[in-house]
């Protein structure tokens, strides 16, 4: 029975990655009960993780998977194409979706009315559909469609926050996100004009034949700016701090670890698989634009983070800085640099999602995420606060954590490119992370809780478990790097070497 089922679906795994959450989203509306909807979401999300793991294994053993959707032959029909790069991103996205769901019922109960929970899971699954779709598809226009699916559901998720500021933040994100998405659409249109195809591999091959011209340059500009808005690249990050601060805690954990990462993936895919290194970096000098912006992001994000009194907002600004590191890896355009950027997608997802779950726990127990709420938490919520410390160390990039691994490769990449001042700046900006993480640690361990404060107990197990799964991951993958770095560096080699 199981064998028969497996034989039936084993070829269709990439398509199931999109179809399952989409169908389950409608199922969530039908069942209406919050626990049933949660069970459906959990089943699908963990199924998607298993699916992503099988796909990654298959890509590692047999190479790139190409799946013709609906049986239409590939350059004409829509292709789902999974190579090392998106297999890794897919694992990150589905993994985060599934782990965050563990904490969702407890954390949501404090922020969203219970009768709305089933709708929340519906939108959550739709967002997952969009993110997984963007990741697996091999068709440029399809990327835009899935981008909009994920963005529209993300706006809805953010607007569920408990204060009214959530509404204006979601609206601001909607305006900027739509402009970004439309820019990408415009860029894809120009690529279609010059090549007559939308398939990513085909686009890459034909653009290489066409060579540089002004339409292609404009397309590159539109796509870079559009993806830049979506991934909150400084100075296009204006929507991010508000959206992260006022969204429900689990939504922040989910969006922070997936939406910007997938947007980064889209930028990497366009730059390295479609425009390719020759056109993007040698003819059009994309690195000259992105490198200074990335460095500015690293410093601006961290500097602003230091002055935030709301820890959720502080981590949001820290995300802006971390996105700077990723884009820096992209713009170095050598194997080590790109490895650093890609592995940081994996690593940053682990630590930021873990840290935002810490905030979810703090919010659940103290009712606030402002720095005053952290007073004395080191003793009152020891496990939660220890998770914050480990996650914070990882943000700084202390050895034996994942943050160190990414920064190590970024520094190597900068040195390979002969840009030693950049390597120095990476280290300097890490010091800024020390400042903002230390502020919280100091308050947590050395400031006594305010007199007369209510007793605060440790976070519930259902929040602690996902938190420590992720934070534990930052240490495990900081020591055993064969999965993350192995796949990322192979993907980087493929993108840089195989493209020429």
């Amino acid at each position, binding site marked *: 029975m199981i064998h028969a089922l497996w034989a039936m679906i084993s070829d269709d795994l990439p398509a199931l990655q999109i179809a399952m959450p989409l169908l389950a989203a409608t199922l969530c509306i039908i069942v209406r009960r919050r626990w049933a909807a949660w069970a459906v979401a959990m089943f699908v999300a963990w199924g998607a993780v298993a699916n992503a793991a099988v796909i990654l294994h298959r890509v590692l053993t047999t190479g790139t998977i190409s799946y013709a959707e609906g049986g239409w032959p590939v350059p004409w029909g829509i292709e789902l194409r999974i190579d090392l790069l998106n297999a890794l991103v897919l694992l990150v996205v589905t993994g985060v979706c599934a782990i965050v769901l563990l904490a969702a019922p407890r954390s949501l109960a404090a922020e969203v009315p219970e009768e709305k929970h089933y709708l929340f899971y519906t939108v959550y699954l739709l967002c997952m559909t969009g993110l997984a779709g963007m990741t697996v598809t091999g068709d440029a*226009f399809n990327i*835009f*469609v899935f981008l*909009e699916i994920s963005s*529209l559901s993300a*706006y*809805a998720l953010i*607007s569920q926050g408990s204060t*009214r*500021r959530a*509404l*204006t933040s*979601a*609206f601001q994100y*909607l*305006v900027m996100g*739509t*402009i970004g*998405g*439309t820019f990408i*659409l*415009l860029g894809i*249109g120009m690529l*279609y*004009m010059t090549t007559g195809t939308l398939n990513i591999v085909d686009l890459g091959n034909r653009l290489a034949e066409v060579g540089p011209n002004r339409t292609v340059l404009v397309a590159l500009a539109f796509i870079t700016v559009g993806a830049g808005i979506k991934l909150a690249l400084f100075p296009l990050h204006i929507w991010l701090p508000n959206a992260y601060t006022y969204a429900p805690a689990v939504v922040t954990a989910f969006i922070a670890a997936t939406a910007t990462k997938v947007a980064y993936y889209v930028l990497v895919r366009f730059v390295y698989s479609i425009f390719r290194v020759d056109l993007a970096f040698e003819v059009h000098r994309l690195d000259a634009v992105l490198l200074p912006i990335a460095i500015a992001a690293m410093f601006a994000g961290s500097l602003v983070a230091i002055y935030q009194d709301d820890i959720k907002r502080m981590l949001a600004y820290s995300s802006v800085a971390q996105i700077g590191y990723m884009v820096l890896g992209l713009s170095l355009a050598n194997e080590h640099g790109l490895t650093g950027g890609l592995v940081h997608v994996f690593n940053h997802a682990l630590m930021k999602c873990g840290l935002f779950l810490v905030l979810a726990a703090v919010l659940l127990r103290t009712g606030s995420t402002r720095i005053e709420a952290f007073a004395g938490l080191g003793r009152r919520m020891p496990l939660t606060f220890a998770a914050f410390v480990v996650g914070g160390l990882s943000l700084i990039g202390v050895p034996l954590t994942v943050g160190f691994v990414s920064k190590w490769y970024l520094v190597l990449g900068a040195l390979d490119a002969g840009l030693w001042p950049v390597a120095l700046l990476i280290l300097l900006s890490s010091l800024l992370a020390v400042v903002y993480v230390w502020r919280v640690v100091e308050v947590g361990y050395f400031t006594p809780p305010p007199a007369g404060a209510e007793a605060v107990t440790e976070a519930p197990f259902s929040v602690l478990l996902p938190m420590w799964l992720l934070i534990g991951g930052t240490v495990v993958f900081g020591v055993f790097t064969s999965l993350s770095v192995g796949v990322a560096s192979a993907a980087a080699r493929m993108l840089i070497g195989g493209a020429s």
Partner: protein
Amino acid sequence: MIEWGLYNYWVVIFLMMTGLYVVISRGNLIKKIIGLNIFQVSVIMFYISMGKVKGGTAPILEEGVRVYSNPLPHVLMLTAIVVGVATSAVALALVVRIKEAYGTIEEDEIRVIEGEEEST
């Protein structure tokens, strides 16, 4: 300098800049959504005019007709129109909620309210 044979692109650019300008300059949230729609429509026009082949007809198989317009961009734009409608729907829903929560849909008034909230 200006090639009038490519006037369709000028229309697109004009619409796009109009839309972006409205989004940036207007404080009324509904007007912002209208600006966003104009902006999206400009891209739809861009795709539609891209698929036009001079002297071409609708791509339907018929005796004696050899020149067709490219149907693919047109089909893509059906999807983009759906996306645009969905975006407007979500945006309008948000505006309704904002009106309920703040009692206004003027951006500067909302900002004043939020500023007062923060200072207390």
